[in-house]
């Protein structure tokens, strides 16, 4: 799978999973659909950015650093909109970015190789 597509798929899957965990918080359970959609979109945006970076820079270490940064940044924006819960939002967001960053570098196939 090419790096951008892998980033999108992984970002979306982890985003859905991330959103679904809100079900365990009774106060926001009634907003779960919105949370899942928002979380999925966030995951897809992160996946596109991280996958694009992986295509440009072929380095596992830099892929992880970039993934973590993108994950934390997007989560920070969400936390700003929520006016709080920085730790609860940014830690999972950072981890999702880190996983996508690692996976795109480790398992993503370069589009140049695919053409060959």
């Amino acid at each position, binding site marked *: 799978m090419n790096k951008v597509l892998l980033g999108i798929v992984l970002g979306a899957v*982890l985003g859905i999973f*991330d959103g679904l*965990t809100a079900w*365990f*918080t009774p106060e926001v359970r009634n907003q779960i659909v919105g949370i899942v959609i928002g979380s999925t979109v966030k995951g897809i945006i992160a996946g596109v950015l991280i996958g694009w970076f992986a295509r440009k820079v072929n380095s596992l270490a830099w892929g992880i650093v970039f993934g973590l940064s993108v994950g934390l940044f997007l989560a920070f924006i969400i936390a700003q909109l929520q006016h709080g819960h920085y730790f*609860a939002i940014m*830690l*999972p967001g950072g*981890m*999702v970015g*880190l*996983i996508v960053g*690692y*996976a795109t570098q*480790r*398992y993503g196939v370069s589009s140049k190789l695919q053409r060959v």
Partner: protein
Amino acid sequence: MKWLSDETLTRLQASVQCPDLSSTRYRALKFVARGGMGAVWLAEDVVLHRRVALKVLDVEDRTGELASRLEREALVLAHLEHPGIVPVHDAGTLPDGRVFYCMKYVEGQTLESYIVNTNLPQRLGLAQRIAEPLAFAHSKGIVHRDLKPGNIMIGAFGEVLIMDWGLAKITNSTIQESSHITSAGTPGEQTGFATAAPITSHGKILGTPGYMSPEQARGDSAAMDERSDIFSLGAILRFMLTGQSPEETPTTAPLPKPLNAICQKAMAPEISERYASIQEMSADISQYLEGVPISAYREGIVERGMRLLERHRVAVVLVLAYIAMRVLFILFSHR
């Protein structure tokens, strides 16, 4: 009575046996090593001002068989132009009648000493690099038949060189038909080699115990083909992985099952049960290194799971860490 030291004796012996290179372009510099049929000398090519190695026949050869073997070795090397095979520069007969050939002087270490400071992946990578020149030789219709750690040199930059092709079997008719290699011997003298006659006849045993295939040990030269080299490469691989020669009783920890299966398949007593080609064996080593299944070993479900876990260890740890974090968040949010 005063005795001569061993060092003095060796020096005297070397100077007595020093080949007469007076009418050639070479000047002997130093005795390097002695093999079964001749000695290797470090020499200087006075025309090109470079160091070369001269392999000179220096043992009694009443039947002419050793000379024939040396000639054949030069002929084989001349037909094998590959970075992993020592190139031959020149060949001929010295004024005293001794056959010689000139090749690149390789400065490095033997496989035995090189592998001491290497880890498992490096050793497997080395086995693959040994396989490359062998595969090339096989594609040219040449079987080495004397592969052993002592015949593999590792150069100063890690390059692998396969030496000593004196027992090589030529199956390619175009090489067999070659004759008369011109050389830099005595000017005006015919110094070319005669036709490269076969050096082994059926029933004659030549090779190194432990590394030679069963068909070679039987002297069944007709049955020998590239799979005989595959047997030897399997024995070398086992030696590299365990540090023990095939004749020694194993005392080290058993090999991982897939690697053991690769060695066993390569060293199968029945020739038809071995890998069909060096490339096939090399592919199995590559696959093992990449953590994917190999053709020589059928793994069980548990082994397959463990291999996949090992292969994707980091990814598994990251996902587990993420799940653990999520579970902890859920638990703490309910407090």
